[in-house]
């Protein structure tokens, strides 16, 4: 237990092929004892249900600290991401190779935007 705590928590990735290869190259990939990886490669044949299940399984795992997810994939499971309000694991939307990052779509930044109404500045 102490060793696991000293080692720290993992960074999980849900993304397209290049994003997963990149972050695995970056040193975040790990296969645990149950042969469950901390990344998921999403391609055109992957269903939304599979992505949702994997995301929920990452949320349940206590060895994961941050979940990186491509923003275009996050759009597919937006309702699940919006319902997650715990600080750990932190969900981070990242750009993909095909689509750039759009801050207006980000869950947390949308919440920050909704913080101020026009009445506050009168």
């Amino acid at each position: 237990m102490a060793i696991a705590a000293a080692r720290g928590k993992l960074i999980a990735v849900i993304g397209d092929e290049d994003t997963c290869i990149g972050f695995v190259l970056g040193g975040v990939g790990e296969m645990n004892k149950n042969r469950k990886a901390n990344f998921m490669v999403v391609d055109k044949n992957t269903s939304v249900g599979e992505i949702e299940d994997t995301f929920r399984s990452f949320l349940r795992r206590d060895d994961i600290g941050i979940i990186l997810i491509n923003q275009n994939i996050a759009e597919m499971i937006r309702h699940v991401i919006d319902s997650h309000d715990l600080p750990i694991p932190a969900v981070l939307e990242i750009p993909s190779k095909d689509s750039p990052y759009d801050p207006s779509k980000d869950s947390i930044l949308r919440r920050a935007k909704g913080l101020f109404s026009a009445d506050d500045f009168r």
Partner: protein
Amino acid sequence: MLSPSEQLDSKVLEIFDVLEQLYEAQDALEKLMKDGFFNMSRARYNLGVKRVSADQILEAELLASQTVVLSEGDDCEYRNCVEKTSPTDHEAQTESVQTIPLFSLHKVSAPVETKAAKTVTTNKQDFSLRRRNVKDKDSVENCEDDASEALNKLKLTEKGEGSASTGQSDRTSTCDQVPDDGDAPGKAVKSKRQLNPLTLFGILVPQELRTSQKRFEEAVAFAVQISNLKHKLCHLQAQYKKLKSSMI
């Protein structure tokens, strides 16, 4: 002591500061990832499409070299301030508070790949083969004599008693320079877990793939920084809402 409206103003300024940092970090992350993707594509062009694909990483025995260590917000400014809203009552400010989790990147630098060559000496032939590069001939001869004596003893005990247990004890005492763990002779056990994922794509990988790896390593650091900034932003939002509700 600041008035509530001044406190509210300072919170708004803090929120904008954090937002600015967040946008900058997001921009840097995007640039790094773009460069990483570009270098990966160049490496794919050199190696071939199938040599740099998800097939290399899906079934690999990987071990994370970059993890995040959770610290419960050393900065007292951000401590004990995040409200944990219950799913049933979103509007009410709950009294249960928890510390802001701040991540810090932890790199595993020590090599984890363990290479333990386990050898067992069972007879003289095996022993002489393994010790052929030893320069000190006297020590080899002495050791060989010991080994032959032990072998004779072994034969005698096997003839006399026919029990394997005594033979085993003699075998282990033939030479204490060679470790004996009771495994098959000359069996090399190597842990397969990869610490450097670059080896998954071959031994002589192109420079572009190394550059791509560097970019993504930096991207991981930025991702951790963005995650911390988002936590701070959520915390400031909660504080702002609390102040605003107290003013009303």
